[in-house]
């Protein structure tokens, strides 16, 4: 029999058993929808990670104290200058960070501040929303100026950040004049929370705010991606030489590239986990299909005998029942994908980053068809193996 005819025969059978077909497909519907959504969540998660890290150059290396709190022998601006001399390193900036009360008129908030050399801003993609950046002059003349992160400016002004430029604020009761507000940068994976910070000239921070508690982090930009490893080796050597008291072990070196990879990997692990759940659902639904197909074969045993009597070959019976299983599961798969599509907005509502994708559709359909083939094969084979006379005599 031609394949097309076999299909028609199958469709007639399925069409006249709509309810049974639908019940059989329920599991496949759920399984396929799950796979589709898992892929959507996975894609969405990865996109989110990539978007978070897109502003962060993968060549960034952070040199920081290995433990929080006081270091016997803290990093200094001189270390940064020495790092910058390596051919593997484009630039290196020390950053002093602290937390404190930030006041603007009667608004008060607990926030972070960072004392930075002027060059830090351009190399960290800090661009201006209002006002101007911290300049070389501010550094050398120790101006008590501050530039605010977008979020901090928003909080202090209750949503009118432009108004704060030119105004006075206090950080830990020390007065600063706000000269600008940066554009929002997002958590660039630095963990520094730029948007919530106030930025002040490095030396001002060191002398005026922190004093002896100054314990900087140095952000280093490798010359290129290949230079990351040699740069890290170089830094370690310098630290061992210049900080003999505690050696390089007091400090931790972190490069953005490996953090990105780690974040992507954890997103992927999550997807795989969910995918495993979906596959389990499909296997269970596949067993359901197998049951129904066995019942179908039993119910239609005499029919199979008749078909064999009028000339159906083994492979035609096998084909018929296999196609039936596959069509049933494919229908379930398509319904599942459809349901998945409608569920994506719901996930977004719960702030799960879900992104529907072609690969999700294909993977879902592929798995549903595979379920049909795999679990439909045995019953179909049993049907094909039936001896015509036994099938005809079956009551």
């Amino acid at each position, binding site marked *: 029999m031609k394949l097309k005819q076999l299909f028609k025969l199958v469709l007639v059978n399925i069409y006249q058993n709509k309810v049974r077909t639908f019940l059989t497909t329920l599991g496949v519907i759920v399984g396929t929808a799950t796979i589709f959504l898992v892929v959507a969540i996975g894609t969405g998660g990865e996109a989110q990670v990539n978007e978070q890290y897109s502003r962060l150059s993968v060549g960034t290396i952070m040199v920081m104290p290995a433990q929080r709190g006081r270091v016997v022998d803290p990093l200094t601006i001189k270390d940064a200058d020495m790092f910058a001399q390596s051919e593997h390193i484009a630039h290196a900036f020390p950053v002093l960070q602290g937390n404190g009360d930030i006041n603007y008129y009667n608004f008060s908030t607990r926030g972070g501040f960072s004392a930075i050399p002027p060059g830090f801003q351009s190399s960290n993609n800090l661009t201006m929303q209002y006002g101007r950046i911290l300049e070389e002059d501010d550094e050398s003349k120790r101006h008590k100026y501050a530039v605010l992160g977008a979020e901090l400016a928003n909080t202090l002004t209750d949503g009118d950040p432009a108004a704060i430029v030119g105004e006075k604020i206090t950080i830990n009761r020390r007065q600063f004049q706000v000269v600008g507000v940066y554009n929002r940068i997002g958590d660039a994976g630095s963990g520094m929370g730029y948007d919530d910070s106030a930025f002040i000239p490095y030396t001002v921070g060191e002398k005026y705010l922190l004093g002896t508690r100054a314990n900087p982090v140095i952000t280093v930009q490798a010359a290129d991606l290949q230079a990351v490893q040699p740069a890290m080796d170089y830094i370690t050597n310098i630290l061992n030489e210049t900080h003999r008291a505690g050696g390089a072990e007091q400090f931790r070196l972190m490069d953005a590239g490996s953090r990105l990879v780690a974040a992507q990997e954890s997103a992927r692990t999550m997807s795989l986990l969910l995918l495993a759940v979906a596959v389990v659902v499909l296997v269970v639904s596949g067993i359901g299909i197998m049951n129904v197909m066995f019942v179908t074969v039993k119910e239609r045993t005499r029919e199979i005998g008749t078909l064999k009597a009028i*000339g*159906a070959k083994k492979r035609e019976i096998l084909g018929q029942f296999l196609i039936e299983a596959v069509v049933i599961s494919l229908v379930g798969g398509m319904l599942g994908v459809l349901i998945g599509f409608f569920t994506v907005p719901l996930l977004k509502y719960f702030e799960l980053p879900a992104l529907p994708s072609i690969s999700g559709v294909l993977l879902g359909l592929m798995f549903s068809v595979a379920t049909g083939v795999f679990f439909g094969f045995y019953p179909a084979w049993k049907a094909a193996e039936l001896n015509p006379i036994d099938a*005809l005599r079956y009551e």
Partner: protein
Amino acid sequence: MINNIKCIIDARNIDKIYKNGAEELKVLDDVTLKVWQGDFTAILGPSGSGKSTLMNILGCLDLPTSGQYNLDDLDVLTAGENQLATIRNQKIGFVFQKFNLLPRLNAVQNVMLPLLYRGVDEDEARETAREKLTVLGLDDRLNHRPNELSGGQQQRVAIARAIVGSPNLVLADEPTGNLDSKSSRDAINIFKELNRHGHTIVIITHDAEVAEQVDKVFYIRDGKINETGG
């Protein structure tokens, strides 16, 4: 003279033994029979005598325990499964006692099936099926499903399916068993008509009245066959 007519069924010394545990039941005992091209034949015997068993073997649905069987010069016992399927499709038309129509297909679709299994084009198969059903007086029931047809009509659909592929041999097992006497006579007349058009027909029956209307009768009793009654 006889050499000009082809031997369709050439069965020799056929035994069929059913084993039930240690017990052996010999249902066919040394059956030998020949049916020639164009014969209109009946196999007559009481219930349990082995008629259906014999028909299943003649129809290549079952194999004998021992003996020899040539169908249209082809040795059935050495044929493979696919070959047997092809033989059933091309050389034999079955009419089953319970009709065995497919319940989800309508009359035309049921009748088309043997042609579709033969690889005939769908349109051509449908046309041929329509013709046969029309000849059998079912032109107004073409799209009805079996459960929408009377017993006699189902019977005619089954006959149409048996002859749609112009097989050499039509085997009918108790074709009148489920019919009243009028439909029964109609059915026999249809077989007569088919025979006049050259179909070789073997009717299996326990009804002596049916046997009276055929050209040749084989009598079967307790698995033994002979050509004279009693």
